């Protein structure tokens, strides 16, 4: 990377700090707007409690402190890179997130690679065969896949491939009764990954296919395509070498935005397939008012989104040298 590029990255990272601080403060305020607290929930789950017990809990969680004292305390903690302690789980937040980050990234990256890769391919094929049968088939399937609710698609895959055919396990990330080691474990996890990955991919694939098709068609209307044709290039060369490269930029932007969404947005798939990801953890912690954990997850997702945005911007300049890093 050039010094110019390096300076750009440093500047962007410096800008990220106030952004993330704002995210923390906003999240803190939003989370505290919800009525009820962690002590209510814990005691509520217990089905019974005495006043002494409730007071003990609130004191232990620091909920008896005024709100601004809690916020300052939390900020101090985060700045020293300590995400705090989840009293509900009896574990440090960073430890909890770490155990969930692996499965989340595994699912997310699989889905991202599959959906962007296949989406670009199918979109390009559709655009090259505009209004012919290939285009029609791809477009109809894409609309169907996009319109199908994710939880329903997941359940139907379970009914067909797990319950009826018995090809894939119903749920979870690995066979818990077996406790496999080494390669057997990797294969087992891959086996469990198939259905949740397909479910999520179906949805995003449809999106990228539609986007890629539209973007290709836009590019075909550009002057440089006319020039290329005049130059005597074949349609195949024009499509794959010129149009595709330009058309992929909007898809890339969309993928960048969606990495953030995928982190939290996989809640439904995680729920249906009992996949131990971050999304469901966040969902649970919201209803349990496990504020430290929730803020920790928000913080990590925030950082990831900032990092991915930066990476996408760098990729831009790589794909299209006309875009300058400033």
């Amino acid at each position, binding site marked *: 990377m050039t010094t110019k590029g390096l300076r750009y990255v440093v500047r962007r990272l410096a800008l990220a700090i106030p952004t993330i601080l704002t995210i923390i403060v906003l999240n803190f305020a939003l989370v505290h707007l*919800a*009525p*009820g*607290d962690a002590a*209510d*929930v*814990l*005691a*509520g*789950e*217990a*089905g*019974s*409690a*005495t*006043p*002494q*017990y*409730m007071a*003990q809990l609130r004191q*232990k969680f620091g909920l008896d402190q005024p709100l601004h004292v809690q916020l300052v305390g939390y900020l101090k903690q985060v700045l020293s890179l300590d995400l705090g302690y989840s*009293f*509900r*789980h*009896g*574990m440090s937040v960073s430890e*909890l997130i770490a*155990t*969930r980050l692996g499965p989340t990234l595994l699912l997310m990256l699989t889905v991202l690679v599959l959906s962007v890769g296949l989406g670009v391919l199918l979109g390009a094929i559709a655009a090259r065969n505009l209004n012919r049968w290939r285009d029609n088939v791809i477009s109809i399937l894409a609309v169907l896949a996009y319109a199908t609710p994710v*939880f329903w698609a997941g*359940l139907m895959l*379970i*009914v067909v491939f*797990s*319950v009826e055919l*018995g090809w894939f*396990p*119903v*749920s*979870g*990330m*690995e066979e*818990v*009764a077996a*406790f496999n080691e080494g390669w057997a474990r990797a294969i087992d996890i891959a086996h469990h990954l198939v259905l949740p990955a397909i479910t999520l991919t179906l949805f995003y694939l449809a999106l990228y296919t539609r986007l890629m098709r539209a973007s290709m068609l836009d590019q075909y209307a550009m002057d440089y395509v006319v020039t290329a044709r005049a130059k005597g290039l074949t349609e195949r060369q024009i499509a794959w070498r010129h149009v595709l490269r330009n058309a992929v930029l909007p898809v890339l932007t969309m993928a960048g935005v969606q990495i953030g969404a995928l982190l939290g947005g996989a809640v439904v798939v*995680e*729920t*249906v*397939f*009992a996949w*131990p*990801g971050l999304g*469901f*953890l966040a969902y*649970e912690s919201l*209803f*349990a*008012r496990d504020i430290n954990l929730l803020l920790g997850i928000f913080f990590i997702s925030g950082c990831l989104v900032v990092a991915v945005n930066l990476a996408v911007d760098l990729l831009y300049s790589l794909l299209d040298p006309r875009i300058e890093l400033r």
Partner: protein
Amino acid sequence: MTGLISAIRGVGFALALCSMVIPAISQAQQTTPQHGGTLVMVVQPEPPTLASYQSTSGPIGQVATKVYEGLFEYDFNLRPIPGLARSWTVSPDSKTITFKLQQGVKFHDGQPFTSADVKFSVLDVLKKIHPRGINTFRSVETIETPDPYTAIFRLSEPAPYLLMALSGYESPMLPKHIFGTGDINNHPNANKPIGTGPYKFVEWQKGQYMRFDRNPDYWEKGRPYLDRIVARFIADGSTRAATLETQEAQIAGFNAILPLDVKRLQALPHIAIMTKGYEMQSPIVELDFNAQKKPFDNVKVRQAIAYAIDRKFVIDNIWFGFGRPATGPISSNFKATGIYTADVRNYNVPNGVEIANNLLDEAGYPRRADGTRFEIVHDITPYGEEWRRFGEYVQQQLGKLGIKASLRYEDVPTWLRRIYTNYDFELTNNWIQTLADPVIGVHRLYHSKSIKPGTVFVNGTRWSSPETDKLMDEATVETDPKKRAALYHEFQKRIVEASPIVFVLELDFVTVYNKKLQGWLVSPLGLYSSFDQAWLTK
């Protein structure tokens, strides 16, 4: 010829077989247990911690009880039987209870279990930080430990309910040498339990499973039979059902399988269902009034609502038949102990709506020109879909009385705040576990001393009367079972008459299990027992 003989033999054998079939089925649980196998149980939701000495949250009980044991087990008549306590004697004045402990019991780290652990668990842990233990053990002043196998409880007043609260679920026995050091509120071993139970804790992969392996040094020789228990956490109801269908899991209780799916799974050849094993929970579905606010400060209005609910309709259509009409604050599961009575005002009558309309007229809420009497908001307890449907039913029934009800559905913390801290409600549906003894599970809902803002599942209706307070106070220390039963009969009569709560149904939880799994149901604790006798057929 040999052919004929063998044919006759065959018939004879078949006849003999026929006569054996019936006893064979009833004794299915008594065939010789086999060692080995992994039991996968579905637990819903995932427990927040494993510290069963600190939280009574339902799912914790299903897993922690495999590791921690209590002084007592219980039989189906709700009578104590030996657990970690081999025997016990109660002094004539009921203020001294002497426990003799089992000998040769070891914790999972090899240290012996002694009376010092009992003293520590009860006085330093349960009496101080257990949500119910604070009440249960309040009269225990001291525990003497003359030798390692004798623990003598000295009470300030008789406490007959205490003997009902000594199971491994309610009062787990902890190792003093582990939990005695460090902050018990925030102990490093909270999620790495070490107990005396038949299974040792191995690991907890958050969001996935907990693993427990067989304890080879368990004090009941030869037990347990299973090599391993794995508890799995699956958030989606349909997926949970599918894991039992495909035999990935063998048991799921506490309605982890939704009633809708139970009906479907029941038809499968390898699946059985069971509603026993919840007798020490005894949940009751109810409607709670805010008895300090108009219009439900008026007893006639409260009675009117109680008359308007068709119990049978609710049981059959909302809970798929898994329940019985409730008559009052104490569950009919207490019949065996004599405490329960059905001799109270009966609201479950065919012409309930008519009576209710008359009562509302008498109460001074006549129908207005548009046919309505008044409007209320009906809160829905946020513990699942069925409560919403129940709310819709109540809304419809209230409509027949000219009461216009709108429904309000909030999440758990918001609802708890509204009902038990702010009292900002008129009518809410709810369910309460009446537990192993009325002192532990029932008094909290009616005693004037239980009106405690900020404390959940206590007296949220804020109804109380000096008479019922007195009956509860007397029953708390009454040791003669007959006199105690009489006090509770009077108590039930008065509560049902005052109707601060509409008692709708006694809910049956359903356990769905694979027929290969045997010996899991050995006490009213059901899934809250240690599974030391559970085994899998090959």
